[in-house]
């Protein structure tokens, strides 16, 4: 198991989980969200090839109302 901080919360994922797989587990479509791993943007094209690692800080964001 891999333990990460996801949007500030502790979460665990199976070994070998990619960003794409993480989004699937979370029930999020890749459209309209964006992902950061350890303060670096993960481009959509790299979701399949980016693996989560123990201790990662992951941010998953979307767009909300604002000024």
């Amino acid at each position, binding site marked *: 198991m891999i333990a990460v901080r*996801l*949007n*500030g*919360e502790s979460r665990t994922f199976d070994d070998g989980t990619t960003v794409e797989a993480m989004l699937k587990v*979370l*029930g*999020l479509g890749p459209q*309209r*969200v*964006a*992902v*950061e791993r350890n*303060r670096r*943007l993960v*481009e*959509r094209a790299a979701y399949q090839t980016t693996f989560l690692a123990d201790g990662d800080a992951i*941010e*998953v*964001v*979307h*767009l*909300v*109302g*604002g*000024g």
Partner: protein
Amino acid sequence: MTDSLEIAGRGFRSRLFLGTGKYPSFDVMKQALERSGTEVVTVAVRRVNLDDRGRGESLLDHVDPSRYLILPNTAGCYTADEAVRTARLAREALGTEWIKLEVIGDRRTLFPDNEALLEAARTLVSEGFVVLPYMGDDPVLARKLEDLGCPAVMPLAAPIGSGLGIRNPHNLRIIIETAKVPVIVDAGVGTASDAAVAMEIGCHGVLMNTGVAEAKDPILMADAMRLAVEAGRKAFLAGRIPKKSHAAASSPLDGRIE
């Protein structure tokens, strides 16, 4: 005569930019956007609520990207690094290079940190972003932001959400006189006359959110703001009369009866 606003090669017929926060519902927001005639709407970038996913409606279900330029902001960022990271996330989520850059320097007033703003703007311009900076009403800062490649500058009229109106028209006027890029007043507009004043001074556009979203009737206020921006713009183009300290009769003096 067409009178369109051009920023970074993109033309806009409407000079009113509208935010999408604080509306009582998505339905009211959607109607307010339509009534305002706006072509640019701002949005914020926030963490997905992992406990609420799939249940809440998404903002983007209610804002048609073929109709509006969706302008993400970096609201709530207090450092250049946070703002740059947020802009990169916004670009990935939306597929747009455009960013309303905010770097806040003070929690109570939400005044911008102008030093960090310059730093973040420099980085983002170098990465190909179209950077529209929310800034203090400082003409020197406006020039620096323009020089480093911002295609418009967005000085505040008053603190964000305050509705205090155009607090320093003289600084805005100097910015307009000296800037070679469009000047969009961003923040502080509370009612229609504020928007009209900004446009009469010669601002090229007005960005607002709270003034519309928290009005008793946001849809009607959106309509009022549309008219105010148009009226102010036309008055500016028409050229107002100079102010005099005494009367000047409108009716002819000759030919009066005796």
